[in-house]
């Protein structure tokens, strides 16, 4: 058992940390959330050049092959200052299925420019009725000669508004919610028949509503086996969930720090409010939850690459549930302990509150992951 970071990983953490400190403190996010894109292509390019965007992809797919823990470490640091670039949505959520199931040609065409920071990718899988079920797909892909024609509506495509390519789930067979028959296609955002509408998210990030009206793609755009997309989507969602836990751990640790600083600095009744025992104990309760979130997230980051799907799902669901419940306690109490300023848009703590809420809701919420955890074979082991 060894949880020490490798030399490579340590270096990575330090580099990202120094970037966030110097180049992307929270004020940067605060400024960018009001802009059309919400993040900056130049910074994205810079991240690509620093090697962060490909850090966890296998070398065979053009990545650095450092494993998912490396991506998690990057996300943890980005989470601490709410860096707005679409690492979680583009690299993890949309990049994972492409790296895992794409052909070498697809890696070259779609993943390489992403890794370089030249393009952004988005996963379009949520539909109005789908909630957390990756197999609930009503968008259809029908054959048109050697090509496919896609028609349907996708919602809450994270960072879809700034994406160059969309990875779209569509039904090539099977009925309504059948796992078989879901396929994945790469669509160009600028392609005819694609209508993107930018929408604002609570946390200051942006997403897109996507309408596909007979969008035509050729066979080279099919990612993974025809009809076998549900398993790939599940893998992607688990990676994104683990990534959300990593980003969340960084975010929560910083929210605790901010609260601690505020408790020491704010004076009422002639004393720092951090000297009041009831508030001290609250801060300790927050600390406990932060440590549990960090530990659960680390386990998920490690186990998400486990060849056993059950082990992966167990660790990811545990971490995601912990992020949702424990993390909610942390950001709620952080707000409460900041008092009046905590509920103003001028103070940063509210930004952490919102981002946590979104991370907790995405990729399966608390109830979803508790139910999934309870349905795994491990739950009945030794019984």
């Amino acid at each position: 058992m060894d949880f020490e970071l490798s030399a490579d990983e340590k270096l990575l953490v330090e580099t990202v940390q120094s970037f966030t400190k110097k180049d992307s403190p929270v004020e940067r996010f605060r400024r960018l959330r009001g802009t059309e894109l919400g993040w900056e292509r130049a910074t994205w390019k810079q991240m690509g050049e620093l090697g962060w965007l490909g850090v966890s992809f296998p070398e065979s797919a053009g990545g650095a092959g450092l494993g998912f823990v490396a991506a998690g470490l990057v996300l943890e640091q980005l989470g601490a200052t709410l860096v707005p670039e679409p690492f979680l949505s583009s690299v993890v959520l949309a990049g994972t299925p492409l790296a895992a199931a794409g052909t070498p040609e697809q890696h070259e065409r779609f993943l390489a420019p992403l890794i370089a920071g030249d393009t952004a990718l988005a996963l379009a899988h949520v539909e109005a009725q789908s909630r957390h079920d990756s197999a609930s797909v009503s968008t259809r892909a029908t054959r048109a000669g050697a090509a496919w024609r896609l028609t349907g509506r996708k919602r809450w495509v994270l960072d879809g508004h700034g994406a160059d390519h969309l990875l779209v789930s569509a039904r090539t067979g099977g009925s309504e919610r059948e796992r078989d028959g879901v396929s994945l296609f790469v669509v160009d955002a600028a392609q005819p028949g694609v209508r993107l509408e930018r929408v604002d998210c609570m946390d200051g990030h942006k997403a897109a509503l996507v309408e596909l009206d007979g969008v035509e793609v050729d066979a080279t755009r099919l990612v993974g086996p025809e009809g076998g997309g549900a398993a790939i989507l599940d893998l992607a969602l688990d990676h994104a969930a683990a990534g959300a836990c990593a980003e969340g751990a960084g975010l929560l640790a910083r929210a605790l720090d901010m609260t601690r600083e505020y408790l020491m600095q704010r004076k009422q009744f002639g004393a720092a409010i951090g000297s009041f025992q009831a508030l001290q104990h609250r801060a300790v309760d927050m600390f406990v939850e932060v440590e549990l979130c960090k530990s659960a997230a680390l386990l998920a980051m490690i186990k998400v690459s486990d060849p056993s799907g059950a082990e992966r799902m167990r660790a990811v669901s545990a971490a995601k549930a912990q992020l949702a419940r424990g993390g909610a306690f942390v950001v709620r109490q952080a707000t409460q302990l900041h008092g009046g300023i905590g509920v103003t848009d001028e103070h940063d703590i509210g930004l952490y509150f919102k981002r946590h809420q979104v991370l907790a809701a995405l990729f399966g919420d608390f109830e979803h992951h508790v139910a999934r955890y309870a349905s795994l074979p491990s739950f009945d082991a030794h019984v």
Partner: protein
Amino acid sequence: MSYSPEHVAFREEVREWIQAAMPEHLRAKAEVDAAFAHADVMEWHRILAAKGWAAPHWPVEHGGTGWDTTRRFIFNEELELAGAPPLSPFGLNMVGPLLIQFANDWQKQRFLPKILAGEEVWCQGYSEPNAGSDLASLQLRADTAADGGFVLNGQKTWTTYAQYAHWIFLLARTDPNVKKQQGISFLLCDMRTPGVTVKPFLTTGGTPAFCETWFENVSVPRENLVGELNQGWTYAKALLGHERTLVSGVGISARTLLRTKRIARDKLVDGRPLLEDPTFRAKIARVEIELEALRMVVYRTVAAAQLGHAPGAESSILKLRGTEIQQACFDLAMEVMGHDSLSWFNRDGVVSAREQSVASSFNYIRAATIYAGSNEIQKNIIAKYILGLPG
């Protein structure tokens, strides 16, 4: 727990009147739980005022209805069920009752009718950047001018809806040389006086509810001093007690639970309403059960008041648990919305009208456990004055 036939008839009368009196555009908003604008609220205030129902809890001689407590309670329940715009509390529930209790006749005649009619909007000037939970350490100075009036200098914060207000009631330091609670006076200040600057700023809900308000050599005539000089803290404390029962928000919570159920009813997950999911039903039920218990506390408080008793120990929990339940209700609403909970002030139609403002309220409702005396301060008070635990 059972209503007399007169009370049942009264409920019928109120329900029918609301149905007839509420303008179509307000009804349309209520129907989908859309947020009301300030203008909506004031329009409804004036409709109630015209009927004589704007301030049922005021004494009859000042325009109250003379209803017994049960009728007032039924009236509020019906307003809540209809989803009517909640009136601004600053005039009707806060400064109004205080003036009725402590002001002189001239002040009552000058201010109360316009509060009642909704002609003058009020805001509250209590908190300051360095006087929050420790309110008594406030520093806004009110120096006495040659004419006996006051000159205000300083800053108030969390002056909610100051951008709409014609008047502000405030606490100001009129004697800096005594114990901090003793040198405070209660003043009424016209917001249109030169030297008053209002800067609204956004809450985490993305709405401009809060303001900071600066006072730079602002003149307040002597006639706007309420009660005695340096006795303002006493009046304010009486008002804070009143505010406590106000903020239990049982109505808001009930409305939010209903809204949550309606969202869950309309939210089809693969053709099946989410409201049919037993896990959700149990989750909502857990909060609703707490709310029902709290509502019973309200009933008991109301019934005791009806009999002329002072509010008992049980009323002190209304603010504490009431605000926690309000927050739990919005947690549930967000959970039911799933991905749509992400939506933030997008155009109509991105999410359903009923969902449009949920995320905003979910954020803003965090303030409920902070404002009107934070829940931590409430606990200090209950520990000391009700449980009698040592200082």
